């Protein structure tokens, strides 16, 4: 099951440059939260702070408190343990090109020392079922490489890979920006189904996508969280003029 996410006074830096300013936000369990804003506003930095990917950039650091369920992300938990509970899907599908479809999905588990064949088979099938890819690949799981799939299939393979380690939260950083409308539709449908089991945070430049998949939306601008509310409110009657100007295309 998904867990809630609580962020308090989160600040993020790249060297001396501050990318996020005092972000406070509470995201409910088993809901999808969309993060929107113009390029450079800090939305990707924000999600990368949730699973401590931000600190992998040289000179980057973050302060503040992030709680994923009962887990204190920045206090006493290893980054590896955190990333096991928080899956991530990136803008460009990135399957391991030399691995088969099966091995792509099983990679995270094998990396964690899990090698029980029968159990692995079960998890690979379940993950591919969850990512709505099973029917398309079940006949050549070990014959075809991940890179042989179409872009949309590759992205669903990456989702299956993230789900295989049974996370509680799924972060998606513009997961459809490289996909055609049909593949995008499949991923969006998938997000709806995955909400029953996971808490989802999605960064998107596509406001229609945010309005279609997310219950809550946060608008970031220049590293600040300008407005966070129900998606219906943000896209029909936002409270802040800056939010309205952005979503109506009056700046940016």
């Amino acid at each position, binding site marked *: 099951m998904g867990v809630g996410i609580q962020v308090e006074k989160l600040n993020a830096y790249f060297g001396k440059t501050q990318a996020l300013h005092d972000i406070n936000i509470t995201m409910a369990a088993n809901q999808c939260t969309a993060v929107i804003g113009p390029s450079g506003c800090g939305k990707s930095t924000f999600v990368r702070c949730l699973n401590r990917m931000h600190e992998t950039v040289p000179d980057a650091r973050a302060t503040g408190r992030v709680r994923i369920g009962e887990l204190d992300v920045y206090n006493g938990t290893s980054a590896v343990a955190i990333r096991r509970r928080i899956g991530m899907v990136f803008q460009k599908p990135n399957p391991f090109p030399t691995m088969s479809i099966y091995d792509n999905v099983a990679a995270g588990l094998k990396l964690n020392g899990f090698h029980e064949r029968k159990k692995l088979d079960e998890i690979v099938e379940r993950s591919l079922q969850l990512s709505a890819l099973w029917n398309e690949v079940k006949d050549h799981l070990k014959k075809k490489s991940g890179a042989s799939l179409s872009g949309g299939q590759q992205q669903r393979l990456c989702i299956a890979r993230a789900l295989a380690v049974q996370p509680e939260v799924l972060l998606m950083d513009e997961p459809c920006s490289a996909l055609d409308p049909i593949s995008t539709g499949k991923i969006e449908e998938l997000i709806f189904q995955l909400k029953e089991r996971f808490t989802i945070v999605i960064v998107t430049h596509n406001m229609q996508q945010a*309005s279609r998949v997310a219950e809550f939306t946060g608008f970031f601008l220049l590293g600040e969280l300008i407005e966070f509310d129900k998606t219906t409110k943000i*896209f029909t009657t936002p409270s802040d003029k800056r*939010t*309205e100007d952005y979503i109506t*295309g*009056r700046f940016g």
Partner: protein
Amino acid sequence: MRSRFHQGLDDLRARLLRMGGLAEQAVDRACQGYIERDLARCHMVLEGETQINIAEREIDEQAFDLLAMQQPMAVDLRFILAVTKINSDLERVGDQAVNIAERVMDMVELPIADLPVDIARMAAAVSAMVRRALESFIEGKAELAQAVLEMDNVVDRMKDEAFISLVKAMNERPDITRQALDTLLVARNLERVADHATNIAEDVIFWVRGADVRHNPPPEEQPIRQSATEGR
């Protein structure tokens, strides 16, 4: 910036204002036609109806295109929804003007009757409502629209008073029944125009504030939505 889209919104606004002008003119002509028993004005109202109907279809078509092609959000989405509803109300204002003109054309065939009702006063109040509702749209000001809502009760009272007076007149003087009946229907048509002006004002408030004030819900039942648009 989405300049093509915003140009489309400006065009839509301009079209609706032209449509508003036509509907307002139709009501004024029909009312003058009644007051002066002027058949020429009545014919102008009837002939103008086609133009209003064409404008209604064009505005709906453009609004539909903008919704489909531009996926508007927030204030722009509310604006387009409001325009489509105002468009429909304006077309019906035009229909009411035609109804009044047809009553007048019937009445001029009959002897002039001294009726205990001040249609000119009612017509002035109704025209003012339509004009102010359109002004609130032009200015994008919810407070102007709010004032229109408050005027509706005045027109309702005028219609009720006209009804009582005219029924009484029909009872007392059966020879003027047809004139009284025509006038009663004119009062009813004017009251309907006032209702459409009220609808327009409500749609302007929805556009500007994002608040649904239809059917006068008590304040505690109104959606608690404060739009960023208000007060701009």
